């Protein structure tokens, strides 16, 4: 369907997109639209331009002119009267919208580096976001943007993490922490009312990097903080910032604010995420049209204060490797958070080296603005990452630290592509690693320990466990531990053998390594879940690389019953196996009855 406009047919989508643009114009946007004098100061500030020097279509002013032309033709009197004179040009067809999509999503990460280099204060990123919003409102967007937006609209978090998986992960992280600290009072409190701190996280932490959750929990516990995590409305990220959809922005931020209010929390602490921090702390109240009656703070500041106030003690010699710091665009350029992470790094690392340029002038990780979710532009993204790679390499550091999950992914891709051999980590990991934990006096009640071992020795009798791993050492270790506890053991060293054995032997549990040559753990897991005969067999994923969790969780099959990070010790293995087989409760019952 189309409408007649100035003698030209305009598609319904184009008409609706323009209507949206008109409804979103405000002083800030109009100021940027009319303020450009085409001086070219922005050009070299853009990492896309620097890696595509001969291609004018990457220049911020050129990209901005695509929207500016529409504005002139539709709104500004000069373009309405003399379109040929001022270069005014509107959009008419669905193809015109596709062309705009390529610019808005594929040639800009909304990093705002051009903005701070513009003498006229033109904020291109702001109206590029508006352009994205126009397109999204008529369904014109990269597939990845649609996928993530729909998850956040309908599940409440941008990675579609279901409530049971989120709570399960928190419970497991609390268990790991208790074992590590040998302290049963170390908990992750859920939905505790009147807590001093409500801690919100990025769903990426649940799906791919749960160690950031247990590290943060450890820090809160050691600081003696009165804290909690919400059972719902816990996602502090906000894809509305990237998609330009203010309604999504308001809905997501509103859920988080409502939850903190319901819990009567005094302060909302936002885990390390650049766009999450900006969305929740800076933009969210406007999108959600809400007054926020509590304090909001980055976890970087919380951790720094704990050290300054003497609530936790750290030993920087535990982080001896040379580290550099990557400023997230949203944290640094948009929110001014750049001195605190450096102060914290100096306290927890021995060898901190600055990256140049830095702070507000730093270059984007190249995965910003939702770019990591747009696979169709991965080639352009990685090409532009050459700027970042050169910056990283020049530091001579072995580790790059960032306070942003998006940057962790962007930098990891860049490092892999340019073979830099660096590790990427976050401040929470370094602080947790540097924590000085007072040692407890060790008293081993010899007889009771012996009783415990005997009591557990029979715990896996009549259970068959299939161990799937390509590493002989792991196979031997797992087999020994589980056999000693009474289990019958089957082993497989590759994916096909594992599926065949599972079908034939119907084990009670499968421990599955993700990273195997040939058919990897992801493939095996899918096959097991899809086959009727094996779909109900509990699976415990074993991996040394949290980032590989995506091989499992991005499949549209029910998630695994358990997940264990390597390295695995005997206690951890047994605890997880028993938990999955639901033996813990039975043992407790038995123990109560025995008493």
């Amino acid at each position, binding site marked *: *369907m189309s409408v007649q406009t100035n003698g030209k047919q305009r598609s319904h989508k184009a008409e609706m997109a323009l209507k949206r643009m008109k409804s979103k114009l405000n002083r800030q946007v109009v100021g940027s639209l009319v303020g450009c004098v085409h001086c070219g100061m922005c050009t070299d500030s853009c990492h896309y331009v620097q890696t595509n020097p001969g291609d004018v279509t990457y220049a911020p002013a050129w990209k901005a002119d695509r929207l500016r032309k529409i504005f002139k033709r539709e709104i500004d009197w000069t373009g309405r009267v003399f379109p040929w004179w001022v270069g005014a040009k509107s959009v008419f067809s669905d193809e015109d919208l596709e062309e705009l999509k390529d610019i808005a999503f594929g040639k800009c990460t909304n990093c705002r580096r051009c903005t701070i280099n513009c003498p006229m204060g033109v904020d291109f990123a702001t109206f590029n976001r508006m352009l994205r919003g126009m397109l999204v409102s008529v369904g014109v967007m990269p597939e990845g943007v649609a996928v993530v937006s729909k998850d956040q609209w309908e599940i409440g978090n941008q990675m*579609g993490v279901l409530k049971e998986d989120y709570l399960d992960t928190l419970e497991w992280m609390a268990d790991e922490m208790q074992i590590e600290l040998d302290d049963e009072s170390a908990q992750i409190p859920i939905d505790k009312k009147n807590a001093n701190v409500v801690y919100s996280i990025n769903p990426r932490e649940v799906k791919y990097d749960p160690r950031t959750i247990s590290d943060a929990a450890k820090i809160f516990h050691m600081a003696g903080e009165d804290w909690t995590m919400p059972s719902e409305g816990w996602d502090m990220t906000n894809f509305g910032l990237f998609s330009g959809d203010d309604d999504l922005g*308001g809905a997501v931020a509103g859920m988080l604010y409502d939850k903190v209010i319901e819990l009567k929390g005094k302060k909302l602490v936002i885990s390390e995420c650049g766009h999450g921090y900006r969305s929740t702390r800076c933009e969210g109240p406007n999108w959600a049209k809400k007054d926020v009656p509590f304090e909001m703070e980055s976890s970087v500041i919380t951790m720094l204060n704990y050290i300054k106030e003497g609530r936790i003690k750290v030993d920087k010699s535990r982080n001896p490797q040379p580290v550099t710091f990557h400023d997230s665009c949203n944290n640094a350029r948009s929110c001014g958070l750049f001195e605190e992470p450096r102060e914290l790094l100096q306290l927890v690392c021995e060898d901190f080296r600055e990256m140049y340029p830095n702070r507000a002038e730093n270059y984007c990780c190249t995965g910003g603005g939702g770019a990591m979710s747009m696979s169709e532009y991965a080639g352009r993204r990685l090409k532009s990452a050459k700027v970042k790679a050169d910056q990283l390499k020049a530091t001579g550091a072995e580790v790059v630290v960032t306070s942003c999950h998006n940057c962790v992914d962007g930098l990891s891709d860049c490092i892999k592509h340019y073979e830099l051999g660096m590790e990427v980590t976050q401040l929470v990991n370094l602080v947790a690693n540097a924590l000085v934990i007072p040692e407890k006096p060790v008293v081993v009640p010899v007889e009771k320990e012996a009783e415990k071992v005997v009591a557990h020795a029979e715990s896996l009798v009549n259970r068959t466990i299939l161990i799937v791993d390509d590493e002989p050492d792991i196979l031997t270790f797992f087999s020994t531990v589980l056999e000693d506890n009474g289990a019958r053991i089957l082993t497989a060293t590759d994916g096909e053998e594992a599926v065949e054995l599972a079908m034939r032997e119907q084990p009670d549990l499968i421990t599955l390594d993700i990273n195997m040559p040939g058919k990897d753990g992801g493939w095996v897991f899918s096959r097991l879940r899809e086959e009727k005969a094996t779909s109900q067999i509990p699976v415990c994923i074993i991996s040394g690389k949290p980032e590989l969790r995506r091989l499992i969780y991005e499949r549209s099959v029910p998630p695994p019953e358990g997940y264990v990070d390597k390295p695995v010790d005997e206690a951890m293995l047994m605890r997880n196996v028993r938990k999955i087989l639901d033996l813990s409760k039975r043992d407790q019952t038995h123990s109560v009855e025995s008493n």
Partner: protein
Amino acid sequence: MHVNGTTIRVEQGDMTLTEIEAIAFYATEDLKLGTGFGNAISMRGGPPVQEELNNLAPLLPLQAVVSSAGDLPAEYIIHANGPKFQETDMAGKLKTTLVNTLAAAVEKGITRIAYPPMGAGFYGVPIQECAKVMVNTFIEHAQRGSSIKEIVIVTMNKREYQPFAQLLHEDTKEVAA
């Protein structure tokens, strides 16, 4: 609200965990479950749901089709291919889609259905308009006399809940047929 023997109400919760006979799902033409509620259905319902849908696709615009619900608490899922992203006559098309879901439910003998705010959120139907169309369509259906005894609108948050609550609580008296 009670209309001619049919209860229409709103509650806040997780639609795919609702204990009810059928849930409605805002589907696409290819009947791929995809993300969002589709992800929750896939994960909690298991692979058989998508397998069944593969044999039912394509689903023409505004039409509805019923599938089983796998391991979900509900027994059925009513998939409805409603209007998306500011199509022309969104309200009219949404109403037709809802009427078709009700017809599909009646034909299958389903008496209790849970709906999300259909088309709101990702597909861009403003929540106020969504609430108005849904509530009016359900009332009209019930006024004509229906074998459907309960319709529950399940919302995820306060923002979605309030417009429905306002419309449903406006008149708490029995509405005559």
